[in-house]
């Protein structure tokens, strides 16, 4: 069983908390320690952002995180090295890389998949690579026992949901709103209706993210979703902290979110 499947199985119906941080933010030397900090707070899966120069689907908070990481020229290989370092002391928490296609494309799908597997990565979500263009990448990931994670949006019609269901492994990521990461127009009732409809087609667990900023919202979302993804709010915490206090503050915030969700 993959680490992601094992993680959901072990939760026995309890909901997963998936915090997101950007690799290399605030400094590449801090990322592994922050990942451990997320686990200390109760993270079930970690989504690790791969910095990109043109993060088209991200709001200002995660854009800035990318920019901070890119000051230190953090590339995809550096991110894999961070995961490998994390794996030295944590062999159970799944790590999903989340980013844009170009860095992966430039490294080469097969080379990337092999290196990611060796580093201890479990899943890969490339935001700007819908299933229509993902055949080669998905094949390379699956050949290396990595789960391709796909997005489903409020605008996704049912026929596409069925198509995505055929390709999705690990979990699917339901984008809770029309907008970029960190937006503030989340409608909980609408999300609940959509998740219920998705269940007819989606066999893997359903995570929900974009715009979940506090424990109350996380709790409300966890009523219907299998996993709750929180990104911009955590990145803001890193932004507000010093390099020395970031880990502690992340752990505290994650613990609060974890305590709130079902």
């Amino acid at each position: 069983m993959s680490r992601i499947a094992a993680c959901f199985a072990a939760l026995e119906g309890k909901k997963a908390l998936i915090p997101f941080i950007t690799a290399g933010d605030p400094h590449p030397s801090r990322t592994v320690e922050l990942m451990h900090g997320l686990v200390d707070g109760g993270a079930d899966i970690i989504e690790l952002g791969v910095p990109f120069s043109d993060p088209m689907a991200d709001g200002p908070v995660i854009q800035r995180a990318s920019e901070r990481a890119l000051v230190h020229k953090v590339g995809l290989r550096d991110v894999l090295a961070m995961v490998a370092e994390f794996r030295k002391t944590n062999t159970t928490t799944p790590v999903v890389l989340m980013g844009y296609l170009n860095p992966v494309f430039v490294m080469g799908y097969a080379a990337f998949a092999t290196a990611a597997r060796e580093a201890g990565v479990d899943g890969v979500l490339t935001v700007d690579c819908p299933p229509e263009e993902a055949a080669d990448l998905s094949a390379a990931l699956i050949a290396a026992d990595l789960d391709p994670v796909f997005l489903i949006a409020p605008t996704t019609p049912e026929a596409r949901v069925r198509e995505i269901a055929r390709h999705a492994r690990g979990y699917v990521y339901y984008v809770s709103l029309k907008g970029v990461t960190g937006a503030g127009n989340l409608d909980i009732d609408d999300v609940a209706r959509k998740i219920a409809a998705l269940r007819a087609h989606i066999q893997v667990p359903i995570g929900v993210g974009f715009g979940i900023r506090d424990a109350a919202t996380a709790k409300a979302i966890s009523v219907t979703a299998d996993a709750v993804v929180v990104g911009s709010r955590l990145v803001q915490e890193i932004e507000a902290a010093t390099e020395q206090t970031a880990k502690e503050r992340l752990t505290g915030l994650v613990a609060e979110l974890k305590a709130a969700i079902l």
Partner: protein
Amino acid sequence: MERYDLPDAKGHFGPYGGVYVAETLMAALDELKNEYERVKADPTFWEEFRQELKHYVGRPSPIYHAKRWSEQLGGAQIFFKREDLNHTGAHKISNAIGQALLARRMGKKRVIAETGAGQHGVATATVAARYGMECFVYMGSEDIKRQSPNVFRMKLLGATVVPVESGSKTLKDALNEAMRDWVTNVDSTFYILGTAAGPHPYPMMVRDFLSVIGEESKEQMPELTGRQPDVVVACVGGGSNAIGMFYPYINVDGVRMVGVEAGGHGIDSGMHAAPLSGGAGVGVLHGAKSYLMQDANGQVVETHSVSAGLDYPGVGPEHSYLKDIGRAEYVAIDDKEALAAFHDCCHLEGIIPALESSHALAWAAKVAPTMGKDKVILVNLSGRGDKDINTVAGLAGITL
């Protein structure tokens, strides 16, 4: 050559193009593709488009024989396709009208656009005013500084100009921000993309709307010279004016096609905007696979050009394909050469060209002397240079 019929149904030009966007936009792009397929087969749409081009834009744009300059160069005869004489002063308006008519048929009342030089922003603001649509234009704060006359024009036309402060603060960042707006307001908004790049169906749609440039040229050149030109040449930013000129000529044997990219401080300096001629690899940006200026980590690099409209690290996917199959050639002209051509065109022909177009002019001026006097070069003079007078004055140490 076999009949050229691209892109395929999924928007691919060989290995290039496609639809590389976040899931939220997939349905919108599907809807756009279907709607465009429908109007493509609807003669009333094209009749409306033609009427707008004739009575509002002033098409067809004339072709002009640059006799003095040609004589001075002593070689091939240079002709200009006068896109600078269009309403709003560049080729961009014809694309903006096509997309705005489509937006209107789709019932969208809010349009957004990205702009570099400001020409596409002005064109979009213009058609938004004409059709009674709300208009937001994203523009890098660097470009706002160097193209201030166009910023004011957009405001006069009732558009909101949104400064973009992220990344390099130029065209590519404006495009990112326009995409973010579109994701957020996808139900109400039509994104009028300003160049032949982006996800399918944009590269195809923009090409089709601007093919009027090459179609007109194909009729006008035989009237003027008794035949088609030996070479057609156009500057390439994202590639819209170039593909508009090239596309109708692709299946015409014997017509050489040259796209001129921005060489900036020179290809060797690394400070340029020439993905096709500067040795860049292939990448994925702004919804499509194409040649892309990037570093070893796949991060898009900052570009440089004296002309804001060419200052873009990517290029439309069809140009990547035309390069690979050898049907078109791509070359670079640096800032200095472009400026020299700008001044020559002013002095010898009484035409102030856009700095973008000056790159194509500079290539023609460079190559004409190596060709016989009976040869013909047709330059797409994509726009006029009024918007650039501050930049040119600044380079001469003059403040206006």
